[in-house]
């Protein structure tokens, strides 16, 4: 037990969680938690996990149910690669913090979501800068093994997509 007054996590110089796993807060995602836990055991990865209400608890890396709002910034900043379900909020966070993201879509056919929109999202986003899709556990293994070569989207890539949307919307709103 930590002594009173000590921070819950003692920062150790040179240590950082290379991979941040995040599966969202609303639904369990045991298949992804297990797959990354297995890879962590085999390859000795540095992983920090947000596992939500998944029923599987990772044995090989530390995890929390949800990342507290005040820790979110630090967790994303210190990660080198994000591994996540194909949630839009997570994709936007990866862009904001300029981290490459590996998406592992939830499948409704396996009871992991209400419909197959995460597969559709991955179909649309695959090959975008900074976004990598792991359709299967073996894709995940390959991408995780190759993590040092994954590149984040540049700020220009991100701005190019949303810039015209914001300016078109501004023009529309102002003539209402």
């Amino acid at each position, binding site marked *: 037990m930590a002594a009173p007054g000590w921070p819950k996590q003692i920062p150790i110089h040179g240590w950082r969680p290379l991979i941040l796993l995040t599966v969202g807060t609303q639904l369990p995602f045991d298949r992804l938690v297990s797959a990354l836990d297995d890879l962590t055991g085999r390859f000795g990865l540095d992983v920090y996990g947000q596992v939500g209400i998944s029923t599987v608890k990772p044995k090989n890396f530390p995890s929390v149910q949800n990342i507290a709002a005040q820790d979110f910034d630090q967790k994303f900043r210190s990660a080198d690669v994000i591994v996540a379900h194909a*949630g839009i*909020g997570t994709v936007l966070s990866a862009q904001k913090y300029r981290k490459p993201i590996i998406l592992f879509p939830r499948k409704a056919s396996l009871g992991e979501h209400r419909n197959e929109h995460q597969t559709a999202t991955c179909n649309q986003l695959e090959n975008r800068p900074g976004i990598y899709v792991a359709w299967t556990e073996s894709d995940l293994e390959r991408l995780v093994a190759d993590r040092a070569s994954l590149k984040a989207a540049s700020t220009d890539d991100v701005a190019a997509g949303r810039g015209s949307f914001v300016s078109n919307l501004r023009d529309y709103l102002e003539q209402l």
Partner: protein
Amino acid sequence: MRKRLLAVASGGGHWEQLAIISQSFDKFDVLYATTLPGLPEKSGLAPSVLVTDANRDRPLQMLLCAKDIAGVILKFRPNIIISTGAAPGFIALLFGKMLGAKVIWVDSVANSEQLSLSGKLASRFADRVLTQWQHLAGQSKSQYMGGVL
């Protein structure tokens, strides 16, 4: 006198999308409404109010949410209401339209195969429904002006 714009989004991806498009609200007197405490502060957006979260599967929550939203609209009297989803935003558009506001539904970028159910329903009364995918433009009278991704 600046026009009043109410911007509504549930916590999570819906909110993150609203935060990005908030850059287009700079000529308005804006009030943000969301469902999770701390989100507007995290995104640096103010002023804001919290409303009860709701979804189709929870009718009681839906009523509480509707009561909250009605209160916000009656007090703020927005000229324009915009939402990126989900259910609370839909309710806001419905009430807002009844009270004479211009209402705009921005369908979540997560909907890349078809418009959300809320988006389809909103298309029956909204002043504009925007899809964030070019290939969906035209579905339920939606238009495409770009997307956050």
